[in-house]
């Protein structure tokens, strides 16, 4: 039986810790600053300065956020359990009337709330600054971008919590976190592309889009790019991507799966 009060106590502590040490504030400021710089100066290379269109802004933000958010989430969560273990406070926590499931969920939800707040506040403030340039449709798209950014953060936070259960010390956990970031953000796409080119595009063309679902960062990209009619042809992916996958609900569901799976593995390991 799960006691929500226990989850709440752990989550509340994690969340308050991040507010008090100004982590939430710092990340929100970074997000807001990047969003505004990209919105107003994103086209500087083409010789123009000033706000252009929300589609292009979002597309640029997506390629930035896809690097930044996984990194921030992994840094936020990699020591959730192993940090307590190394400090020596884990044993005391576990003698409390709390189950390991409640502890992991509490940690995860508290950190998620901190990350979600900085994401929504940071990009939200930037959105308010751009509000006079946005129509309702653009606003919807931008909200979708923020929501999917929160989901992206939560998937990598889930991976981070999993790492924090498996690692025996903080140093090992940080190494694993960086390796995961490297793999999902940099290596994975290169591998797919390499495989596609090596086979001359004859094989794998059909399963290629499905393989993208194995990487939460790619799911995030697809989720955003394919909601922007202007950009999807620009990226040249419209032709290879099957219509039945370009459904935001389905993609959102896959993100949720990417949250639930690492957490379940973490719990399984933590209970042993």
């Amino acid at each position, binding site marked *: 039986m799960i006691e929500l009060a226990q989850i709440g106590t752990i989550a509340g502590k994690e969340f308050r810790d991040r507010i008090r040490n100004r982590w939430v504030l710092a990340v929100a400021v970074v997000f807001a600053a990047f969003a505004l710089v990209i919105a107003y100066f994103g086209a500087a290379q083409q010789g123009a300065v000033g706000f252009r269109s929300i589609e292009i802004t979002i597309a640029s933000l997506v390629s930035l956020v896809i690097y930044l958010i996984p990194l921030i989430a992994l840094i936020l969560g990699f020591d959730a359990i192993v940090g307590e273990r190394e400090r020596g406070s884990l*044993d005391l926590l576990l003698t409390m009337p709390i189950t390991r499931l409640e502890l992991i969920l509490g940690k995860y939800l508290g950190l998620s709330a901190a990350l979600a707040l900085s994401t929504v506040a940071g990009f939200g403030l930037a959105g308010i600054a751009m509000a006079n340039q946005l129509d309702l449709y653009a606003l919807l798209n931008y909200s979708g971008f923020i929501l999917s950014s929160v989901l992206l953060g939560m998937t990598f936070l889930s991976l981070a919590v999993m790492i924090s259960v498996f690692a025996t010390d903080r140093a090992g956990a940080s190494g694993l976190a960086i390796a995961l970031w490297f793999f999902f953000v940099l290596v994975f796409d290169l591998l797919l592309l390499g495989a596609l080119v090596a086979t001359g595009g004859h094989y794998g063309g059909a399963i290629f889009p499905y393989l993208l679902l194995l990487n939460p960062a790619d799911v995030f990209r697809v989720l955003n790019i394919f909601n922007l009619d202007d950009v999807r042809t620009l990226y040249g992916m419209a032709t290879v991507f099957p219509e039945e996958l370009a459904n935001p609900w389905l993609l959102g569901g896959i993100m949720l799966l990417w949250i639930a799976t690492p957490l379940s593995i973490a719990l399984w390991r933590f209970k042993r």
Partner: protein
Amino acid sequence: MANTIIEGRNITRHFGAIHAVDGVDLDIQTGELFGLIGHNGAGKSTLFKMMLGLLPLTGGEIRVQGESVSGNNFRNVRRKIGYLPENLALYDNLTGLETLHFFARLKGADVQPCAAKLERVGLADAANRRVREYSKGMRQRLGFAQALLGEPKLLFLDEPTNGLDPEAIREFFAILRDLQAQGVTMILTSHILADIQERVDRLAIMKNGKIQSCGSVQALRETVNLPLIMEIGGTVTADQVAQMLDGLPVVSIETRLGRLWVKLPREAKMQALARLMTIGNGMQDLHVREPSLEDVFFGLSE
């Protein structure tokens, strides 16, 4: 027994080839102040962790208040267990009062008495200071206050006097006496054997994962029957003494710091004294030393 709060049968924990705890039977009575001593690596902490349900058993069984430590109902027993870990680590960024509030909520206890608990361990003035600024002794007091949250029926105290000055140690044991008067059962470990010697009801000595001996301090002394030492000052020589004690089961006679140390079993004490009294001027001083708890402890754990 109806009064047994902890019931352990054949408690076993192996880490690979290492038998950290090896078939221990242990019963602890309600209201008892029980001491657990042993060298580092003797298995004390492992045994503690198993009794707290932190570490699964390789074999055997432990029941606390009738509930198995590995069972699903143990959560409810935990609400009435207090624990002070050996290497206490708290959260530096919280104040003393916030720390207690956090643990009180986890225990499902009222947060109202937290301030009173801080006062009881002498931290009332530091309640709103961050733990980061606490000294080692203050952290230990805070940890103790934490263990007292939720009015526990059973207290596990691992090296509780760590980092406390003598004054604080006296206050600490005064609190333990109050708790004992309220019927709280306490199990504690300590390296400072003198602290334990006078204060515990019963004592268990662990070695190589086994309980070597268990009972009251007096009972342990009698079981071990360590030789006592007669320390003689004067001009009398070892040979003369050996001659006088001829026929008694003397263990050894040696010279230490200009005095003779005669080791012999307790039963021979009175006979030996009677003979030594005849030395006359050759003996200016005589001191009989009973084995201390340290001697008992090392005698048993050697």
